[in-house]
């Protein structure tokens, strides 16, 4: 035991238990769900939970992509628009007779390419992520309308079959393929973030980009890569959303990027980067989804109450993070 391992006198480590925020989110989820179960009949059923996943599968995928970006300290405002663009490309190409696998490829490629473009703007040209992805948002949505102003419905039989197919789980619960895809995406993302060099570099860049560079890590690849991932996930989310809505429309998912950001933040990921888990973001989506379900169960409340409650929830989480996790010295 030497001078270095002796604990510093008078200092409390301000680094919190790493899992505290994610646990907090899960607790909130359980509480919210529990409140619903107590209040409403039929709320506490497996199918309600399954529906949560079914309705929000696309958002889970998008939130996972957003997690990567926010972990590096960036932000991606284009996700909602890329979802819409994906639905539009899907609908338009299916209508034009493309084979479904080609459609999927085209959509994923488009999302990834847009992400790459934004990543390059941000990393190479120093444009701030907020602005670069805002431009991406305009571009994607604009392209939607260039393809078609009115909505285009998806009539392809293979697609429709996929959309309505269900998987039966024990306990008379059914889910759709979207849920499976969402879960797989989350698991893959968690693997990448925790067990690959790329993922750890994501955290490193979020912790300190200059340090990561000096450590010899490939920060450029990561900085651009996270936007490619987010674009890819938005495109995939768009495919899932097309399955859900069976139409392509330029006015789909307006404002969804903010939902994704809210989910990620509620899930315990810091906007400054470097701290956060994919599990947290998934939990965040579930919390938001539960709120929505609660309100629809209530029946009498109009949809705009959802917005208010989500706003309040966001605030509560942030305040909680600030006061508990950081223990700042309030001046």
């Amino acid at each position, binding site marked *: *035991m*030497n*001078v*270095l*391992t002796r604990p*510093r*006198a*008078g*200092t*409390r*480590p301000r*680094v919190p238990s*790493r899992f505290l925020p994610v646990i907090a989110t899960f607790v909130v989820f359980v509480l919210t769900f529990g409140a619903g179960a107590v209040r409403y009949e039929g709320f506490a059923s497996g199918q309600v939970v399954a529906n949560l996943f079914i309705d929000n599968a696309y958002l889970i995928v998008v939130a996972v992509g957003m997690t990567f970006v926010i972990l590096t300290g960036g932000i991606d405002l284009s996700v909602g628009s890329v979802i819409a663009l994906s639905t539009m490309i899907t609908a338009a190409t299916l209508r034009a007779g493309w084979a479904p696998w080609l459609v999927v490829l085209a959509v994923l490629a488009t999302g990834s390419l847009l992400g790459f473009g934004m990543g390059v703007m941000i990393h190479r040209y120093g444009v701030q992520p907020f602005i670069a992805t805002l431009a991406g948002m305009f571009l994607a949505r604009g392209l939607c309308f260039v393809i078609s102003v009115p909505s285009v419905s998806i009539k392809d039989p293979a697609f429709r079959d996929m959309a309505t197919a269900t998987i039966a789980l024990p306990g008379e619960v059914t889910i759709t393929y979207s849920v499976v895809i969402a879960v797989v995406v989350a698991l893959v993302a968690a*693997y990448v973030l*925790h*067990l*690959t*060099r790329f993922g*750890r*570099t994501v*955290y*490193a860049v*979020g*912790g*300190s980009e*200059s*340090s*990561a*560079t*000096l*450590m*010899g*890590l*490939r920060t450029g690849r990561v900085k651009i890569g996270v936007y490619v991932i987010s674009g890819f996930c938005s495109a995939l989310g768009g495919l899932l959303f097309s399955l859900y809505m069976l139409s392509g429309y330029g006015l789909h998912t307006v404002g969804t990027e903010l939902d994704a950001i809210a989910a990620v933040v509620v899930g315990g990921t810091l906007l400054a980067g*470097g*701290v956060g888990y994919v599990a947290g973001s998934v939990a965040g989506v579930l919390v938001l989804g539960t709120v929505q379900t609660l309100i629809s169960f209530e029946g009498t409340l109009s949809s705009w109450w959802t917005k208010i409650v989500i706003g309040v929830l966001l605030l509560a989480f942030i305040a909680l993070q600030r006061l508990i996790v950081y223990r700042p*010295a309030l*001046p």
Partner: protein
Amino acid sequence: MTEHAAPVVDLRGITVAFPGVKALDSVDFRLFPGEVHALLGENGAGKSTLIKALTGVHALDAGEIRLAGVPVSFHGPAQAQDAGISTVYQEVNLCTNLSVAENILLGREPRRFGAIDGRAMRARATELLTRIGLHIDPGSALGSHPIAVQQLVAIARAVAVDARVLILDEPTSSLDAGEVAELFRIMRVLRDSGVAILFVSHFLDQVYEIADRLTVLRNGTLVNEYATTEVSRLELVRAMIGRELGVLDEVERRTERRTPDATPLLRAERLGRTGAIAPFDLELHPGEVVGVAGLLGSGRTELARLLFGADRADTGHVVFDGRPLRLRNPRSAIAKGIAFTSEDRKAEGLVADLTVRDNLILAMQAARGWARQVPRRTADELVEKYVAALDIRPADPDAVVGTLSGGNQQKVLLARWLVTRPRLLILDEPTRGIDVGAKAQIQKMVADLAAEGMAVVFISAELEEVVRVSDRVVVLRDRQKIGELSGADVGVDDVLALIATEAEKVVHT
């Protein structure tokens, strides 16, 4: 021990120029395996630039780099690292949110079936840490350890990459004596195993203790290369600053020249803040320079911040000018004529994007409020006056302060507070990172201010400096005031002895 072997790093004719200034001009430098080679020079001499040129951060305008005889050119730190050159910077450039093991091994982490093998990584990290004698949990977050430990983890990273060359840029600035000893022990272990170590420091004692050879730079040019045993301190300093050291000796002791007032200007009673500093008593008199000495982490800055209201005290109270004063925030202190220059001038002192003029009048303007603008003419006069008095370069009031050198930035910061004509001036590390000449200027100025009746608190990590400048020295240890020393012949040894006896007391209880 290796004079006859071939140099592992051979720099010839290195020239690096930036718009308007030649940072390095035809510098030669050699580094042999199995030696500790110190790089010395004042601020702005080019030490940092040389290192950045070697590691590929800066492109060369002229000259060549040879690594073990082979010419190389790096386009970034990653390449330099791959070639076996590792750098540990003064600000520990690691990621505090990652674990210790990751900080050591990320980039060459052990894999299993394509994924990172966490267990193997932690095991290897433990192995490396043990090799340098550090016993910490490799799975713990880096940020949960003090800076000294983080620095050693940075060195462990260098060891992990089997570096042939280890560059340590001002590694001891944030370390206390015990930690420095640890660092030197590790350096010797590495040196003896054949690593070439480039050690940049301005602490001459340390340089003489650890280095085998020395290279001195001045104003971007090479002055000379010496073996440590062949050059005296006087010669070395003369080589570094190009003139006699005598000017420093002129800063005489204050007590001969003035007597402080008997009535205290400020009296702090049981002033303290949990987690920062234990409750202390302190009296400050007009016309007196009170030094605050102690090792790193002893609470010097915390004490100063309490006196200024930068942090709020949990206990105790302050009496200023005979009346109780609630130091809720800096504004309440400034209103009474208290001024404070932070030790972190970049983060807490200067507003980098604003001009010299704006930075200079900032405190004065803030005190006047937003509505009453300081007239342009007054501002210009003040700038002119202090640029001359403190020798601030460049003498351009519209220069953006972020472009000035560290020493000049410090002078602008000082001028900001002098403009407010404070009655109590608290200086936290005012000479850190400043060249010898400017240091002497500032120390002399402190003496002059005290002679005019200002109360001054002078905090510095360099005990010699504190002792030379102060009438009275307050000694801190482990966030507690343990005593005061006053008298004409207080020396560094007295301070160290006081700190040591306190340490002994702790051990024996």
